[in-house]
């Protein structure tokens, strides 16, 4: 990838060097700073200079120490080819990215094949020149190269003393199918299992590689490979633990949302039942006791008056107790008169008339009393009717009980 400007170039270079494990010291950056300044003096913009400098990744790759270039390129490519696969499984990335990567790989393979053919055709007459210049060439990606080609490579390697790192690059191969298999069938939810699987695969690969190295390479370089593969494995593991964390976070978010929704629903229910409590008649509400009315039913209810019913009941009260009014009034006034206050008899004669002589009632009092007695009589009649109805019901139940017994109902 070509950088945008100097800042971007240096930033990308730093990241890339760090990623492939090159010790990025100040000298490297000083070289490019100087280059940018010199280029600027010549009248080039930073963007143009970046374009001429070329791909940052390629530049960074060239910093891998030449003595270990082949080894390092195996490792670097292993990192390069594995990490994108891992990151592809992160939420938000799509499968199409994976496809494009694969197609890129296919292209790479093709170009490598072409290169390899060139090498082969050129190898015979220029035997002496070949070793050095092959040595500088980064090792073809062992993970993506067709197996038939690897076999050819091996033959050449046994013939060429320069190629002394054969075993580990073959040993690195088994890693490929495992990694790819698991990563292509990846879904987000399986992150944990796949993380473990890839981690194990990488560890295994490290083991195989280190075994291979023991047989062929000296200990120092072997350790370096081992270390590099371990780092690669760790990076993959880290990536997967990141995914696991992400999944956990998402699960938590979902749980939170569910909780919030539940709270909202219950709050809405409560609000609804509060605002409509008075709409629900007690008989529609929860059943209390045997289904009858109890005062606890109206404990928390708001008052909502049905005026028609209320007036009817007050009128009935008046009818029933109207006869008591003159009695109450005359009682109070008589009590007052008894205390020595001159009764204003003439003014309230009507009321006092209730007790105007023994067993003689004032005419109005007689009317009041008549209404009261009638109302009371009506009430008693109603009560009697209820009692009769109840009695009839009991009789009916008794009779029905007999009938049910007879017919086994």
């Amino acid at each position, binding site marked *: 990838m070509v950088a945008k400007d100097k800042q971007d170039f240096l930033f990308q270079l730093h990241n890339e060097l760090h990623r492939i494990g090159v010790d990025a010291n100040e*000298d*490297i950056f*000083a*070289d*490019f*700073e*100087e*280059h940018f*300044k*010199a*280029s600027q*003096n*010549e009248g080039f913009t930073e963007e143009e200079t970046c374009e*001429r*400098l*070329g*791909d*940052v990744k*390629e*530049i960074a790759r*060239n*910093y891998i*120490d*030449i003595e270990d270039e082949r080894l390092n390129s195996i490792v670097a490519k292993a990192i390069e080819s594995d990490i994108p696969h891992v990151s592809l499984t992160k939420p938000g990335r799509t499968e199409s990215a994976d496809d494009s990567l694969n197609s890129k790989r296919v292209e790479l393979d093709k170009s490598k094949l072409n*290169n390899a053919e*060139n*090498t082969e055709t050129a190898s015979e*007459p*220029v035997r*002496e*020149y070949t070793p*050095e*210049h*092959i040595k*500088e*060439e980064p090792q073809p990606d062992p993970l993506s190269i067709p197996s038939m080609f690897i076999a050819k490579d091996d033959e050449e390697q046994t013939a060429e003393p320069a190629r002394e790192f054969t075993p580990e690059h073959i040993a690195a191969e088994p890693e490929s199918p495992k990694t790819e298999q698991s990563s292509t069938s990846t879904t987000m939810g399986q992150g944990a299992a796949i993380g473990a699987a890839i981690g194990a695969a990488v560890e295994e690969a490290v083991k195989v590689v280190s075994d291979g190295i023991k047989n062929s390479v000296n200990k120092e370089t072997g350790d370096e490979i081992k270390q590099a593969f371990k780092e690669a494995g760790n990076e993959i593991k880290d990536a997967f633990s990141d995914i696991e964390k992400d999944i956990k976070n998402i699960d938590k978010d979902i749980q939170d949302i569910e909780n919030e929704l539940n709270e909202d629903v219950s709050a809405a229910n409560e609000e609804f039942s509060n605002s409509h409590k008075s709409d629900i008649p007690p008989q529609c509400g929860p059943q209390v006791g045997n289904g009858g009315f109890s005062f606890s039913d109206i404990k928390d209810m708001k008052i909502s008056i049905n005026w028609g019913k209320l007036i009817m009941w007050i009128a009935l009260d008046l009818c029933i107790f109207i006869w008591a009014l003159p009695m109450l009034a005359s009682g109070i006034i008589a009590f007052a008169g008894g205390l020595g206050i001159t009764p204003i008899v003439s003014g309230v004669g009507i009321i006092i008339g209730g007790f105007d002589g023994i067993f003689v009632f004032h005419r109005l009092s007689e009317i009041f009393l008549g209404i009261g007695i009638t109302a009371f009589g009506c009430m008693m009649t109603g009560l009697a009717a209820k009692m009769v109805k109840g009695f009839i019901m009991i009789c009916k139940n008794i009779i029905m009980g007999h009938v049910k017994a007879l017919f086994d109902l």
Partner: protein
Amino acid sequence: MNSQLKRGTLELCVLSIVCESDCYGYELVNKISTCMDITEGTIYPLMKRLKDNGVIDSYIVESQEGPPRKYYTITDTGRIEKDRLYNEWFEFVDSVSNLLKGENG
């Protein structure tokens, strides 16, 4: 030009340029990129590698008008290496041209 050939000859080119006269990075990059189509940025890693191998050395020159410049110079081992590569190159070219001539003839 074949990328492998390019890589192989790049080192020889750098050594022979530096052998002629000391020069600084940007100058070197320009000289090479005029005759070879290369990723210019890869010259610097190459210079670092050559320096690590002891075939070239570098020194800083403070300049009045611009920033300090890093100049590259060839070492004695570098001269030997350069001669070796030089011979190898012409052997290679000769054998290739012989081959081609033989095919044509």
